C-alpha cells in the first residue's frame, strides 16, 4: 500500500516541475523587461510605509481625510483635480466623509452655471455632483501666474510618474539648499528628486502649514504622507475594491485549478 502511494506522488511532481519551470520563465522575463522601461535617471525615491500597498492594502481613512485638507489648503492654490467630483469624497473606499461634511466642503467653492431663463450665466455654490473647482480659467492663465510653468492636474499624478507615491512623497520633502556652484534660474528650485534636480514648484510644505482638524501634529513628513495617500486614492479610487475582489478571484481559481489538476490526472491514468 505504501508503494502505491509513493508512485502516485511521483507522477504529478514531474509535470508540476515542468510547470514551475514555465512559471519561472514568465516571472523572470516579464518584470525585467518592465524595469528596463522605467527611466533610470531619476534619483531613487524614499520608500515610506504605505497602508495601501500589498495584496490586502487599504487606505487609512483618517490619512485620506487629512490629505484632502492638505490638498485644499496647500495644493489647490495652483493644481486642479479635474477628474474628481465632490461626491467622490463620500464614496466607499475613499476618505468617506459624511454626506453633510462633503456638502459643506463643496459649498466652499463657487461654480459658474446656467444659462438661466434670461440666458445669463450665474454663480452658485458647488454641490456634490460638481467636479473639483479648478484654480484656473485655462492653461494660459495658469502659466501666466506661474512664471510660464503649468502646474499639472493632480487627479492621476501618482499613476503618471515612475515610482508613483514614493516619488510624490520624496519630491514634496526633497527641497534642499542648492550645493555651492549650482546656478538656478529665477523661479526654479533645487530638489533632489526632481529631474535634473530642478523644479519650477517651490517648497510648499512647512511644519504646521496646515492645522489638522483632527489635531494631528502637522510635520512636513505627516503632511507629505497624508496628501500622497490622498493622491493615490484619487488616481486609483477603486483600489480597495480591486484588491478585495482579486483575493477572492485568486482563491476561487486556485481551488478550481486544484480540482481540474486531479480530474486531469484521473482521466489520463489509463493512457500510456
Amino acid at each position: 500500500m505504501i508503494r502505491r502511494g509513493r508512485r502516485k506522488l511521483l507522477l504529478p511532481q514531474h509535470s508540476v516541475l515542468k510547470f514551475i519551470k514555465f512559471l519561472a520563465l514568465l516571472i523572470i522575463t516579464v518584470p525585467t523587461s518592465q524595469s528596463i522601461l522605467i527611466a533610470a535617471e531619476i534619483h531613487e525615491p524614499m520608500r515610506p510605509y504605505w497602508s495601501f500597498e500589498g495584496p490586502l492594502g487599504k487606505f487609512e481613512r483618517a490619512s485620506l481625510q487629512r490629505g484632502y485638507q492638505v490638498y485644499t489648503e496647500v495644493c489647490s492654490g495652483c493644481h486642479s483635480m479635474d477628474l474628481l467630483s465632490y461626491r467622490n469624497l463620500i464614496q466607499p473606499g475613499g476618505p468617506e466623509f459624511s454626506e453633510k461634511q462633503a456638502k459643506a466642503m463643496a459649498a466652499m467653492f463657487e461654480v459658474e452655471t446656467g444659462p438661466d431663463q434670461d440666458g445669463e450665466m450665474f454663480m452658485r455654490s458647488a454641490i456634490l455632483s460638481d467636479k473639483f473647482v479648478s484654480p484656473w480659467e485655462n492653461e494660459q492663465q495658469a502659466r501666466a501666474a506661474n512664471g510660464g510653468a503649468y502646474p499639472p492636474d493632480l487627479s492621476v499624478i501618482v499613476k503618471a510618474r515612475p515610482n508613483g507615491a514614493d516619488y510624490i512623497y520624496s519630491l514634496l520633502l526633497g527641497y534642499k539648499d542648492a550645493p555651492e556652484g549650482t546656478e538656478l534660474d529665477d523661479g526654479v528650485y533645487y530638489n533632489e528628486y526632481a529631474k535634473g534636480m530642478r523644479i519650477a514648484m517651490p517648497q510648499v510644505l512647512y511644519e504646521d502649514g496646515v492645522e489638522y482638524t483632527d489635531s494631528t501634529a502637522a510635520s512636513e513628513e505627516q503632511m507629505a504622507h497624508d496628501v500622497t495617500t490622498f493622491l493615490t486614492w484619487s488616481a486609483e479610487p477603486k483600489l480597495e475594491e480591486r484588491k478585495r475582489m482579486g483575493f477572492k478571484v485568486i482563491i476561487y481559481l486556485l481551488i478550481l485549478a486544484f480540482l481540474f489538476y486531479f480530474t486531469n490526472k484521473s482521466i489520463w491514468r489509463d493512457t500510456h
Partner: protein
Amino acid sequence: MSTDYKPQSAVAKWIDKRLPLITLFNGHLMQYPTPKNLNYWWTFGGILTFCLVTQIITGLVLAMHYIADADLAFSSVEHIMRDVNYGWFLRYIHANGASMFFIAVYIHMARSLFYGSYKEPRELIWIIGVFIFLLMIATAFMGYVLPWGQMSFWGATVITNLFSAIPVFGESITNWLWGGYSVGSPLLTRFFTLHYLLPFLIFGLVILHVWALHVPGNNNPEGIDVVQGSQDTVPFHPHYVVKDVFALLVFMIIFAGFVFFTPNLLGHTDNYIQANPLQTPEHIVPEWYFLPFYAILRAIPDKLGGVIMMVSAIAILAFLPWLDTSKVRSAKYRPLFRQFYWIFLANFLLLGYLGAQPAEGIYVIISRIATIYYFVHFIIILPVLGFVEKTKPLPKSISEPVLNDKERAAKAATAPA
C-alpha cells in the same frame, strides 16, 4: 471530421438534419483524435482562444462607454475607471489581456518553432498563424492609441510617420492616413473603428487556423505522424479539454495577479498624462511585446530601410516552411538545430531588451548585430542545417518512445544500487 455521433433527442435530430452543427462540434471538439503525447506547451492554443474571446467581450463593453475624440478620449477612459460599474475591472482585464495575449502567442510560436509544427503538411496552419500575428500587432498598436495618453499619441506619431518613408507617395499616404496634417481626432476615430473591426477578422482567421489544423491533425513532441487506428491518439474530450482547462486556470491565476494586484506594471506611466502634441516624451517606447521589432526598426540608419527590415522580420516567418530544409520536425531529434534554436530565442530576447534602450552608442551596434543574426538564422542557418545536420533516429511511433522510457525505468529499478 469523422464522428459516430447520432443525435438522440427529437430536437437534436431536427436540427442536425437541417444543419449538422452538433455533429460538427462533436467531431471537432470531442472525438477529434489527438496525439496522446502532447505536453503543456500545446495548451496555448486553447489559452489564446480564451484571450481573444476575453478581449472581444471586455472590448465590446468598453466601447459602449469610450469616446473616440481627441478632446474626450482620455477623460472617457477615466470615466470608465471611476464611474462605470466595474469599469476598472473591464479596462484592466482588457489592457493586461493584450499583454497576456502576446505572452501566450509568443510561447505558442516558440513551441511551433521547436517542434517543427510549421513543416509539411502543416504549412498553411503556420502561414495563417503568421497573418493572425500580424493582425494582432495592428490591433494591439491601435488599441494602445485609444486612451490618448502621451505614449498613445507619440507612439501613433512615430509609427504612422513610418509611411512617409515610402518613396514619392510617402507624404500623401501619411496625410491620407492621418486625415489631416498631424495626428489628431480623425486618426483616433479611424483607429477606433479598425481596432473594433480587426479582432473579428482575427476570429475568422482562427477558425481557418483550426480548420487547417484538423485536416492533418496535431503535430506532437516526437514530430512524427501518428499511426492511424493505433494507440497513438486519444479523443480530444475529455483528455485535452480537461488538460487545457487546467492549463488555462493556471494562466488565469497569473493574469488575475496582474489585473488585481499590479494592473499598471506592464503599461507606461506617461500614458496617464493626456496627449500633448507640444511636448515630446523623453523616450518613446512601444508596448513590451513590440520591443524586438522596434529594435530592428531602429538598428537600420535609414528610415525606409528600417521599415523594410521590420516588416521583413515578420514576413520572413511566412516562408519558414521552405527555409527550414530538414525533413525532421522535432528539435528532439535535431541536436544541432536545438542549439541554434536557443541562440535564436536568446537573440530575440536581446532584441527586446535593446528595443527598450535609447538608440545610441553601444546599443545601436549590438542592435545591428542582433538584427543581422535574426535574419541569418532564417536565411542561412536553417536552410544549411537541413543538409549538414546528422539527425537522431526517429521512433517508429508515438507509443514506442513512451514504452522505451518505461522499459528503461523498469531496468533502472531492478538494477543493483
